[in-house]
């Protein structure tokens, strides 16, 4: 097995085998990242391909300081953002005011009540703008100001989109939760 350092070095020399190794090692993790930003797996795989192209041809830019995985993840997120911008005009645009933030819903969840697949599905069904902001803020941990810059939107828009996204997700999870509880009651 090659270490990350070896892989990086070989990839910098455009070694085809090392590229394959890098892909085999990290494609699953990065597809997990991509899927959060996509509407379905096919789109996520497109983003994944673009991400790996960027990674292969720009691997020299990885400074060596900081985690390699973090760098890979960042490339994937940036690619997803580029993808989002590129496809913005083709997406079905959902009117934002359809969902009015109601803070009275459930505010806490048990970690293992929902499966990852279910959470992915909830994200995939989200309007693209909500999904971007929610992922960047809640999962990637960017600040609203950074998100605003990345997406080319206003800081306040990022904030309001986030809170609306939360409301939608909460709503969806609640429905899903009820559905699941009714199953378990029937069991």
């Amino acid at each position, binding site marked *: 097995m090659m270490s990350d350092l070896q892989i990086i070095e070989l990839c910098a020399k455009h070694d085809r085998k090392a590229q394959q190794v890098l892909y085999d090692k990290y*494609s699953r993790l990065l597809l997990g990242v991509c899927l959060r930003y996509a509407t379905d797996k096919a789109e996520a795989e497109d983003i994944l391909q673009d991400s790996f192209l960027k990674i292969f041809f720009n691997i020299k830019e990885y400074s060596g300081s900081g985690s390699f995985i973090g760098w890979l993840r960042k490339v994937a997120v940036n690619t997803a953002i580029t993808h989002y911008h590129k496809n913005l005009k083709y997406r079905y645009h959902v009117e934002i005011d359809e969902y009015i933030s109601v803070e009275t819903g459930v505010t806490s969840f*048990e970690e293992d*009540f929902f499966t990852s697949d279910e*959470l992915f599905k909830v*994200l995939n069904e989200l309007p693209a703008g909500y999904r971007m902001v929610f992922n960047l803020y809640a999962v990637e941990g960017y600040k609203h100001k950074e998100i605003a810059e990345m997406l080319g939107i206003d800081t306040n828009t990022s904030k309001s989109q986030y809170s609306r996204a939360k409301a939608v997700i909460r709503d969806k999870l609640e429905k899903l939760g009820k559905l699941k509880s009714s199953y378990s009651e029937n069991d």
Partner: protein
Amino acid sequence: MKTKRQNINLRELFSRKLENAEIIPEASVSAKLMRRVARKEFLRFNPAKLNIYYLGVILISGIGTALLLFSGQGNSDHFNSSGISASIYRTDTVKYIEIQAKQPDRKSPDKSNVIQIEPKKMLIVSNLPDTSGPKVLIKTESNKGVDLLPTTIPNSLSNKRLFSEVTSEMQKLQSGSKPESFLIDPFVSVGCAPMKVKFYNKSASYDSCRWTFGDGGYSNKRDPEWIFDLAGEYKVVLNVQTNDGKLLTSSATVTVHPRPQAHFEITPDKAVLPNDEIHFMNYSTNAVQFRWNFGDGTGSESFEPRHTYSKFGNYNVSLVVFSDWGCSDSLVVLNAFSGSEYFIDFPNAFIPNAQGPSGGYYSYKSDEGAQVFHPSYSGVNDYQLKIFSKLGIAIFESSDINLGWDGYNKGQLCDPGVYIWKVRGKFRNGEPFIKMGDVTLLKN
């Protein structure tokens, strides 16, 4: 639901569950990716591997070598031309004797194809050293190339005229000295590429023949027709086998001049007629004379003319260019000032801001709520908008296209309902427009 885990909030839920979630990609993704990598790798400049840059270099050097070889050939022809012609004439002269013997009655060449031959001074050099027969070297006095040129550029564009303007050196020689000495009679020998030439085999005794046209082509017909695609000087050779088994050779030169290319652009891009002075940018190549037609009955012969139209209209602008050799090309731009990209359209409903009059100034960004009645437009110069109530009372007027109607009249929000609008003005190309319609004022 009896998990021991503590309850967490939404953000934590997603970041914990999904931050490091792994999804297995389809197997095809890897293959697809590697194909894309290979493609990109090929396009990347890489000194260690053969890629497109090297292909490019090879291609360019190949073309360069080919050009070099080609031009080298041309040059050597040019430098040796007098030598070659001398030898040609020598053999021709020999043949002349033979033909003369067989056809004593023939006095002059067949002139049906010769339209006009300008008399040129001839320099006759006779009695070259160590020649035993009656050999004559004929050279035109001036430079051979210049000699072949028509002295004026023809007025008409038709190729016919170019083709019929026969000033072949051969024919000059024919008329000037001993015409029968040539077996070849090209219908034309100077013209513009692509040039079609009809050749006549004038040998009296004829069994079989072979023509080689100097561009790699050949024919076994008696009187072949040949099209020269590329500019250049071609030495056409005719080998004739006579009935009594003799082998005769004769040659002629065909000069094909490059055709010029007419090309121009009109500025400004979106001209306002009749106000703007139009500038015609000339990108023609190989051309020395230009004939412009601006489409309004006027024209020009300057290289890059400027023109002001007297009124709005869609004009066809044409340019005909001529080369030094009288070859021509033309370009016509139809409807050069067509206003198809100019338009003005109005919506049929809007929702005024109930909070109070906005003033009516709008931008596409700020008026996403359609609070101001305004047009979508392009290339509008003059503009006047009027809004009438159903009773026909004018309640709004604007001559600034950036100022729309905010739905208020004298500070009061107008009643919901249908209003009539009328707009008149001019597009940038000078074309006037008048439009009318109705718009429904909706309540917020």
